[in-house]
């Protein structure tokens, strides 16, 4: 699939979060791969499984050739049996291991719902902490090149709804590595939902192992006029939108929550206290989803801070079409975020 034609490779802006990284730029997939490599090397309990993790493509590069270094006992291909294999991963976690189960597309997670939602996410609560489930699930949202309705779904809203399941959505190479290591170290089920377009980025990424705490968001750009919360790849679109807005004299503050559960509510409310205006940009559907929840957060805990109604930028409530003219109409991006901000500021 010629993803190269969908989006050119680009360098991420220096958000200042890489700290003492020494200026090393790493390909997004390589950052995830490095996290897995380090986890496999540092912790004998860690293993990587999933359909195709040991194939030549290596999960868009994120797992490529790890089986050569660690063997197929610890990095192995699985049958296409998402229901059972999710339970197998959860059971292995209960038995003292730290599985990382790669699911390719979130669309296939629907087949894993019983084991993920009915079992893994409930085991700690249902048994009062008697049994832990330190499980990482990973899936990558497809987008573009005719991926169509069953290979492109952004399902964070569905998983966000589930108590007992942590949910991370990185948008930079630095966070992709740090959140993976944090998820592996966590004693609970963590779902990481990546976005295929992010894989065209290179970002400042330190070589040492480090974690990005789940529940800690990041300010990508400071500003006083409006807060833009961008989820996953939309955080990058929000940054581009903010640059355009700056050219028009509007200073937008761009926030990337990085993880949705736990959600860094303070980051959003603190920013609202400064700007009084909120645009939420999500890569998923609008109704009942992440953008709705963040808007509700503003209404419930920050209504007195708001100077204007909350605006949401999201995909329309429709399955994804394959054709590129329809796709273009379907996906929002920086332009739609700019328009939403201008509506708020120049009604």
């Amino acid at each position, binding site marked *: 699939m010629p993803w190269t034609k969908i989006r050119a490779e680009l360098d991420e802006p220096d958000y200042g979060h890489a700290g003492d990284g020494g200026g090393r730029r790493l390909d997004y997939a390589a950052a995830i791969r490095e996290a897995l490599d380090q986890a496999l090397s540092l912790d004998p309990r860690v*293993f990587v499984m999933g359909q195709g993790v040991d194939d030549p493509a290596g999960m868009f590069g994120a797992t490529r050739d790890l089986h050569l270094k660690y063997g197929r*006992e*610890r990095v192995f291909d*699985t*049958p296409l*049996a998402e*229901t*059972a*294999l*999710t*339970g*197998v*991963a*959860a*059971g*292995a*976690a*209960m*038995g*003292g*291991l730290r599985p990382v189960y790669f699911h390719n597309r979130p669309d296939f997670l629907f087949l894993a719902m*019983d*084991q993920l939602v*009915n*079992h893994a996410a409930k*085991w*700690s*609560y*249902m*048994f*009062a*902490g*008697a*049994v*832990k*489930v*330190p499980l990482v699930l990973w899936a990558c949202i497809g987008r573009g090149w005719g991926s169509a309705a069953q290979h492109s779904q952004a399902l964070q809203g569905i998983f966000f709804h589930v*108590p*007992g399941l*942590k949910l991370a959505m990185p948008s930079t190479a630095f966070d992709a590595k740090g959140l993976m290591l944090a998820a592996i170290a966590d*004693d*609970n089920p963590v779902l990481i939902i990546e976005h295929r377009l992010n894989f065209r980025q290179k970002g400042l990424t330190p070589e040492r192992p480090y974690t990005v705490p789940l529940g800690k968001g990041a300010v990508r750009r400071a500003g006083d006029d409006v807060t833009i919360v961008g989820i996953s790849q939309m955080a990058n679109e929000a940054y581009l939108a903010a640059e355009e807005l700056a050219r028009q004299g509007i200073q937008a503050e761009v926030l990337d929550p990085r993880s949705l559960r736990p959600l860094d509510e303070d980051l959003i409310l603190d920013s609202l206290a400064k700007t009084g205006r909120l645009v939420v940009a999500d890569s998923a559907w609008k109704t009942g989803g992440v953008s709705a929840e963040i808007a509700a957060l503003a209404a419930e805990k920050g209504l007195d801070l708001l100077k204007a109604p909350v605006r949401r930028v999201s995909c329309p409530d429709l399955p994804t079409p394959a054709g590129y003219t329809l796709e273009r109409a379907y996906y929002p991006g920086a332009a739609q975020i700019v328009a939403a901000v201008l509506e708020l500021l120049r009604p």
Partner: protein
Amino acid sequence: MSVAPARLVELYRQMLRIRSLQERIEAEYHLDEMKTPVHLCIGQEAVAVGVCAALRPDDYIMSNHRGHGHYLAKGGDLRALVAELFCRSTGCSQGRGGSMHLVDARVGHLGSSSIVGGGIPLATGLGLACRMQGLDRVSVTFFGDGAADEGVLYESLNLAMLKKLPVIYVLENNQYSVCSPVASRQAGGSVFHGLEPQRLLSAKVDGNQVEEVLAAAEQAVARARSGEGPSFIECLTYRMRGHAGAGSDAHLGYRPEGEIARWERRDPVVNLAERLLAAGLLDRATMAAMEEVIAAELDEAFAFAKASPLPGAEELALHLFSE
């Protein structure tokens, strides 16, 4: 009887203990102090006891909604079970699980799912964990004929056969899923019999004869411990009571005339008692003393449960995540 006499008497004691607990629950259920849907395993005691007798304390089991027998047979704490039925803080799941969600990790009982078939892949994963950690433990999943309808059984067995995992799949065929008989749901029973034994060792045993269950389980355990792979044991048994709640559901009329009476003649506990008496391995006085000890143990457990505190609202949000 190929089982040593003292061992058989002990298996009987365990079966009787499980039966006595069920009957105590039935006797008290109408008081509505146990506010949790119970799924009694009266008539199926020999399956839990026979299988768990072949296991070590560090072997794993994954149970289901009809799991009181599995819990006790694996060595789970009786007081914590009863307290869980009363939804107390001292319950094995601290009042969060109820009857369907028992756990005692100290003895390898890592939980029970009330999603039919839900424990099957989890037990498979536990088997994978044993393998990957180089442990000679085995993992057992207990599931009913209803779970044998589910696709997850195929998926799990396929992986276990592929990787030769130390997992034992115990199908407790009690003839009914709620009120639906097996024959209305499965085309000629389970498809997992008759595979080449090197892929999957399968057995179909009289699940009301503890010696038969134990023999099949011991063979499966030996095979699993030596790295030869999984086994599938179908235990033919009968759910003497309704799907849920206390008492007979004969009045509902979904069971053929005379079926319950036929199976009552094969009652695993009564039958074993008669055989032990006939063989002179147990006399009536010893049996009565055994019943007395169990009754006292149950009295104590029920008193403990009733005297235990109920979880307060301040405990509601605890344990959502493990720290």
